[in-house]
């Protein structure tokens, strides 16, 4: 559980200074376009076989970060080192080869499967693209194997996605990602759209797969309890920046950043007797188009100290073993 013990080996993925800006509007006759700073100078690392949780609310940039790691979205700036090659610099052939190492599972089990393809075709598509199964028989065997790994049956191959429930579709999505035997899977809110009891099934499946195949996960979610359960380390994002990174245990036991504290206290617990002092943040999340100056969180922060917090951007600094915070007052 100690983050330092793993730190000796080289990380599988090291992201440095990742930035993504979206330009909205513009064109010949429009006024100056708006820029959305979706991801702002984000850095983290993931080691082989471990899970890094990435939490944040809407507008935090966590989904964009996940997609940039795969280069599904082109980053504006930054380095993404996967096994020592920079993902950002890869040409299209190398990028296609990378798709065998990094895969993604999506949030929406209904939209992420092509309604006009059979389940077998969906799961086996990667095999066709990367020429991993030369003959028809090999293809079918591998697809059946994948179906069984995720807890579905072989005769599901011929069915179509709309015949399955949300949880089953999510399993299909997982099988699809596993087809190439990846080393890292970006899980973009994989259980948020599922019922609670199905969530547990899929989380257990993801954990089992991690054990079995030595997979690393970048687990993106907004549900803190799920993230804590599955992750070894957790990073908290707010408006495009990482505000705190720590081991799962440390983050939840002793959060340092005021946003993390508020986030944790906002989570409803299934214990009616617990009378907690809840920190209710005032105001709304600012728009990523016009983020506050300095520390993005200062407009809602209960402990802010002006003018420091509104003028200088706090950097991530290490406070204790592997526990990093970006706050002028707490690091």
């Amino acid at each position: 559980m100690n983050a330092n013990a793993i730190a000796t080996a080289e990380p599988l993925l090291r992201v440095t200074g990742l930035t993504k800006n979206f330009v909205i509007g513009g064109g010949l006759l429009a006024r100056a376009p708006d820029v959305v700073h979706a991801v702002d100078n984000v850095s983290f690392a993931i080691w082989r076989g471990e899970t890094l949780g990435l939490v944040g609310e809407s507008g935090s940039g966590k989904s964009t970060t996940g997609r940039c790691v795969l280069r599904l979205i082109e980053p504006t700036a930054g380095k993404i080192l996967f096994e020592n090659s920079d993902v950002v610099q890869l040409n299209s052939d190398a990028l296609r080869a990378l798709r065998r190492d990094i895969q993604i599972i999506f949030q929406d089990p209904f939209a992420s499967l092509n309604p006009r393809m059979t389940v077998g075709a969906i799961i086996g598509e990667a095999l066709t693209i990367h020429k991993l199964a030369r003959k028809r028989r090999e293809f079918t065997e591998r697809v059946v194997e994948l179906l069984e790994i995720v807890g579905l049956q072989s005769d599901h191959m011929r069915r179509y996605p709309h015949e399955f429930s949300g949880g089953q579709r999510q399993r299909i999505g997982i099988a699809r990602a596993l087809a190439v035997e990846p080393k890292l899977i970006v899980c973009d809110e994989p259980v948020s759209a599922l019922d609670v009891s199905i969530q547990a099934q899929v989380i257990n499946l993801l954990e089992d797969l991690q054990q079995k195949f030595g997979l690393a996960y970048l687990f993106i979610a907004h549900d803190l309890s799920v993230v804590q359960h599955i992750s070894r380390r957790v990073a908290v994002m707010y408006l495009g920046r990482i505000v705190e990174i720590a081991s799962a245990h440390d983050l939840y036991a002793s959060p340092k950043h005021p946003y993390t504290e508020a986030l944790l206290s906002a989570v409803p617990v299934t214990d009616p007797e617990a009378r907690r002092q809840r920190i209710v943040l005032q105001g709304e999340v600012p728009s990523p188009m016009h983020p506050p100056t300095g520390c993005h969180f200062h407009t809602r922060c209960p402990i802010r100290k002006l003018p420091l917090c509104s003028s200088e951007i706090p950097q991530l600094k290490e406070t204790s073993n592997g526990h990093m915070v970006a706050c002028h007052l707490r690091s």
Partner: protein
Amino acid sequence: MAGSIPASASAETSAEIATAARGATRPFSPWLDAWRRFRRHRLAVASLVILAVMIAAILLAPLLWRVAINDIDFSAHLQGPSWPHPFGTDDLGQDVLARMLYGGRISLAVGLCAMVVALVVGTMIGAVAGMSRGWVGPALMWLTDLFLSLPQLPLLLLVIYLFRDTLKAIFGVEGGVFILIVVVIGGLRWMPVARLVRAQFLSLREKEFVEAARALGASKLRQVVRHILPNALGPVIVAGTIDVAAAIIAESTLSFLGLGFPPDVPTWGRILYDAKDYLDIAPYWAIFPGAAIFLTVLSINFIGDGLRDALDPRGVT
């Protein structure tokens, strides 16, 4: 509003319930599902039957109705419908039914081929425009708008006038005119298809399953052909049926104006052209081909309506 009925909430609930209940009762593909929905449209199904009967009649005509189409027999001219000539005869004594059955083949062939041309050209342009992220998309749409603002009939006439003789020389009389008409009609009907396809592509390319294909390493071509096109086809098919109808009318118009096929080829429009001078003496001569055009176009339009509901993508998910 709290006091009024939110149609979306209750309609969604009903739809969710239906989907959830279906579970895995029996396996069926999206196309079969569409067919089931189509079957519910009684008018569309009736039209399909009528159209099928007409096509069968036209195709099997030479086997069943062995009357020559150009058997000139002045003694039998301008006779009303009778047993030997169910649709009557024209001014040369030729059997109208036989001529209609023959001409029907051409009319339908022109309709179908023109539709294919329009769909292929329109889909290609729409697909390229829909997938591009730079200046190509807007440029193609500008081209589409340009074509849309051209006056169709005068252009049709101009092109025919310019190219009819050349094509006749190369492909023979009938072939040349056929190609000319198909290209001209199809070439002026691709624009709505292009717009439709582009709109579909713009929305489909952002869908998660397309993103998933990209994440798997699929090339752009694969994304388009395997993922986007099959899901974009719904509205395109519907537009296609409308095109067939419009093409048949266009061909009939051309023939009626004397600008289509040569005079001895009895397309329905041509028969109308010949019959127009005898409307008071032999109205049946115009009524039958007119009715045939009307019925064909009407059936195709109803089928198109049925298809539109059957292929509604929202019903599949």
